[in-house]
């Protein structure tokens, strides 16, 4: 069954915390990965690969460039798992 927005956000926050040490409650839909969370491109790629495993979706390299905010990633995953 497809996960809800909240469930995807919680799961993604967990992956971000694992990779960067950023507190899970700081990971909110409107936060920018680079400007707000200071996540560099290599950490971002690690998070993306782990998100593919966790949510059973494919996130191609070209798509990663469009994921500016946590909300972008959550809605991408939401659509991809549908």
């Amino acid at each position, binding site marked *: 069954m497809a996960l809800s927005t909240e469930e995807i956000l919680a799961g993604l926050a967990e992956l971000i915390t694992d990779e960067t040490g950023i507190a899970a409650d700081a990971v909110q839909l409107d936060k920018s990965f680079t400007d707000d969370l200071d996540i*560099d*491109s*290599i950490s*971002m*790629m*690690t998070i*993306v*690969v782990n998100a593919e495993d966790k949510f059973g979706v494919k996130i191609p*390299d070209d798509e*990663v460039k469009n994921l500016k905010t946590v909300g972008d990633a959550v809605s991408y995953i939401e659509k991809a798992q549908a």
Partner: protein
Amino acid sequence: MTETTLRVKTGSPYARILSYGAARGEHLVPNEDIVGPIDSSDEWIRQRTGVVTRRRAGKDTTAIDLAEQAARDALERAGITAEQVDLVIVATVSNEQRTPGISAFVAERIGATPAAAFDTGAACAGFAYGIAQADALIRTGSAHYAIVIGAEKLSEFIDPSDRSISFLLGDGAGAAVLGPSEEPAIGPTVWGTDGRPEAIGMTASFTEFRDGRAGWPTIRQDGPSVFRWAVWEMVKVARAALEEAGVTSADLAAFIPHQANTRIIDEFAKQLGLPETVTIARDIVDMGNTSAASVPLAAARLLEEHPELSGGLALQIGFGAGLVFAAQVVRLP
């Protein structure tokens, strides 16, 4: 017509690496010296790449000079004379001259002529490609002693304002002398290409530069995309090399990946599940990324710093522009 049977040669049952040699660019270039044009900091470079300094060659030093120096070092360590060498393979992407091949210059300079000499490209996988070829040629009797060299003067092809790769690159050469062996000492090579020439390459061609349509060609990469490939795709290649050699990661004494970025090395080791008993080469920290030279340079250093690894098994893997890759398990000299 009478049918005649063609005679073919067979060589030593096995080949092995007898020694490694190294030559490093004479100038130590710390991060502080290059951060200006990329509007960056020592901390930014360390965090993203692990590189603290890189070695670069002076204006008058060529890739041929570095290759010659590494070859002489490897020959001395192997106790083999240049006259005994009948095969010279040099991997490079940065020799300043198209022809003759860098291998012909090296063979002549070290006194290995009339050895067969040829160049191989294969970018950062070039050394591992060369080992695969030398191993095969020794076992089929076409060569007895071979020198395989990775040699680069990448600083000729960098753009000081490029934030994708230039700041990582260094100059150097690493060499290995190979010879016959009574025991298996070079596992099967797992190699190939992954059709993505755009991921790492040059900003322009030399003809575009000549015709004034582009500036001097320099090296560029799509860093995040290459990172993903270099870890999660290359882990599969590394596992296949272990499997084909009939060993597991617990049998390894050392892991010698292409020295591209410490974060690739760290994540690679994590994904591969290497036990703590495996020593991981991290020459990149003060050498930078030297493309085809990085694996033999890292191997030479590992044996200098950890002589106890001698005789142990090492998994070496090269990967880079093409995208190309090659991995094999070797017994360290």
